[in-house]
């Protein structure tokens, strides 16, 4: 065990993956000698050489197109998009290509080796274009997996799981947590499973569900709720696609109540999918409407970011309103 912050855990996961399999390659804008603008790929070029860790030209559609080709060839590309806000030029390569590669070829070819890493989320005074949470755009795309870790330990295990998963995976990293705190991370090679939610804390009165940086916010909200004797069950979804509905269903069958939170805007966000599924599967057990605590239906703001974000107070209020319904 070592103490690592999330960036160190990610760097360590990449190092572990590259050491274990020489087909693993890391690349993206400023990823090479410099080690990435957040330094997630620090020292990898020095250690594994310029052919396995390198800068690309500044063209996201090219980075992912190139990565798709590499994965089809049998390499294991881990491509970095500098900010999740800049993933959209690669949207076609991801949604029309990566996601459909295996299906359209009848499994003659696949890009299962592909992993795309991108820092996402707000709370860092980043405004419109350094704050977005685009997971829902990808969650409507069968063929992709979408994973979001909540802390250093999860980050390493899930990233190793993502790199070795035989399907294309988008790995969104909560950049607000990159250096926020450290945690125990095994130095050994370990994987955490994709497609499985994790019950962080058991409780009886209400289920509170989120992923990534929201887990820390949920924790604070739940502290407030527990002070008012509301017993919360807390779930980290971890994989957004394909998501672990069963764990959530089982929890809501028990608690009868659900609050889901994410930073992305409300309309079309992934909380909608969850609410739609859970109202269907737990209809007779629900004691109150499923609540969504999310960003506003606006672009991501700057000066008023605090007001925009689904913070612990908003989640706490939603929990209370839900209980009092």
């Amino acid at each position, binding site marked *: 065990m070592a103490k690592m912050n999330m960036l160190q855990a990610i760097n360590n996961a990449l190092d572990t993956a590259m050491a274990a399999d020489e087909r693993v390659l890391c690349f993206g804008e400023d990823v090479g000698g410099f080690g990435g603008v957040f330094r997630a790929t620090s020292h990898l070029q020095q250690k594994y050489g310029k052919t396995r860790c390198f800068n690309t030209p500044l063209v996201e559609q090219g980075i992912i197109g*190139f990565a798709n*080709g590499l994965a089809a060839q049998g390499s294991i590309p881990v491509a970095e998009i500098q900010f999740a806000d800049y993933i959209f030029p690669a949207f076609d390569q991801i949604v029309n290509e990566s996601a459909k590669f295996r299906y359209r070829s009848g499994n*003659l070819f696949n890009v299962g080796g592909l992993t795309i890493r991108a820092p996402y989320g707000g709370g860092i005074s980043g405004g419109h274009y350094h704050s977005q949470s685009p997971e829902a755009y990808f969650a409507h795309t069968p063929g992709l997996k979408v994973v979001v870790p909540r802390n250093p330990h999860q980050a390493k295990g899930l990233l190793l799981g993502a790199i070795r998963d035989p399907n294309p995976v988008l790995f969104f990293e909560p950049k607000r947590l990159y250096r926020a705190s450290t945690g125990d991370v095994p130095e050994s090679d370990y994987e955490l499973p994709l497609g499985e939610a994790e019950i962080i804390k058991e409780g009886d009165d209400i289920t509170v569900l989120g992923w990534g940086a929201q887990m820390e916010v949920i924790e604070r909200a739940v502290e407030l709720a527990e002070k008012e004797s509301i017993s919360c069950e807390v779930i980290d979804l971890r994989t957004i696609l394909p998501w672990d509905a069963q764990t959530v269903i089982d929890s809501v069958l028990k608690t009868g109540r659900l609050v889901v939170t994410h930073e992305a805007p409300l309309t079309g966000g992934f909380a909608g999918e969850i609410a739609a599924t859970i109202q269907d599967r737990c209809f007779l057990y629900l004691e109150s409407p499923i609540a969504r605590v999310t960003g506003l239906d606006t672009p991501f703001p700057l000066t008023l970011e605090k007001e925009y974000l689904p913070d612990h107070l908003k989640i706490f209020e939603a929990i209370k309103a839900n209980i009092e319904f």
Partner: protein
Amino acid sequence: MTTTRSEVVYTPTFTDGDEFRLPTFKLLQQDGTLYDGAETPDLDRDKALRIYRAMVFTRVLDERMLAAQRQGRLSFYMQCTGEEAAVIGSTAALDDADMIMAQYREQGALAYRGFTTDEFMNQLFGNEQDYGKGRQMPIHYGSAKLHYMTISSPLATQIPQATGYAYGQKLAGKGHCTITYFGEGAASEGDFHAALNMAAVHKVPVIFFCRNNGYAISTPAIEQFAADGVAPRAFGYKMQVIRVDGNDILAVHEATKAARRMAVEDNCPVLIEAMTYRLAAHSSSDDPSGYRSKKEEEAWREKDPILRMQRWLLDRQWWNEDDEKALQESLRREVLETMKRAEKRPPPALETLVSDVYDEVTPALAEQFEHLKMHIRKYPEAYPKSAGQAKGGA
């Protein structure tokens, strides 16, 4: 550091590069003889005949399948007519294990590599033997064993993929390269720019083969770009480039052979622009009379690449009229008979609807599938293709 090493001038001097003209490489005249000054290329009889047979096969396949589409037996078709030399001449210059990442009009490459008539038909009819499991429209072929990437409709996406694929080949160190084919229209996509630039920067063994056939559906090349073809773009990437007469099988073959050598030996990406013409409609859904003249078409029909090669073969006495007749007849028969068999094969199994989305069917999708089967069992007459398969649990 900036990279420029340019001279200095003291008056503002603009240029659009028009003075730098790229020549066109040609060897074979339409009458089947070489141009004066052209050397006889190094192409042996066996290979020449392999190429020629693939060209004729492609032409016959295209004619028959367009007819089948017109008869309503096939939903859609795209012909390669007029571009057989460009496609097959270049593929023939490669190692058979080099990767091909094509656009959609390159059935000739597959024919050359030995894709069987049955394999073509199974894809065209999307039957249970289609490698693609009936999931894509006709002409979206693919073959892992022939190193031919399954076609994808979104244009130009395969071009940066080819750069990546070839980068992997370079690392693998087995001396293979990738060729990617695309039209002069697709070369307008952002993916083209990304692909060529990345290939040049990372020194990747990839050949970018542009079929400049004059049109992107109805849009003529002059509304696609202002430059003299696609080739001058190579200068912007500092990439080796050659322009070749795309209807000249010998020139295309020689050029691609040289390009492959540069790619594989020097990890040097190359752009080849083959000047040709799409003699047929864009696809079976298109009618070119709305946007171009018969006269223009006729002028290009005079430059038929298959006839040109045939004359060269006849000239060398590697081929004769009887050979030609026998080949034509046997191919027609084979295509027709194979088609008849293929169109009778049943559709892919119902479970192909949900397999291959991921490496394994996810629990949620399995549930959706069970639900679907229950539904089909309830209304078997409404789903004739699959009613027989909806029985029982997963």
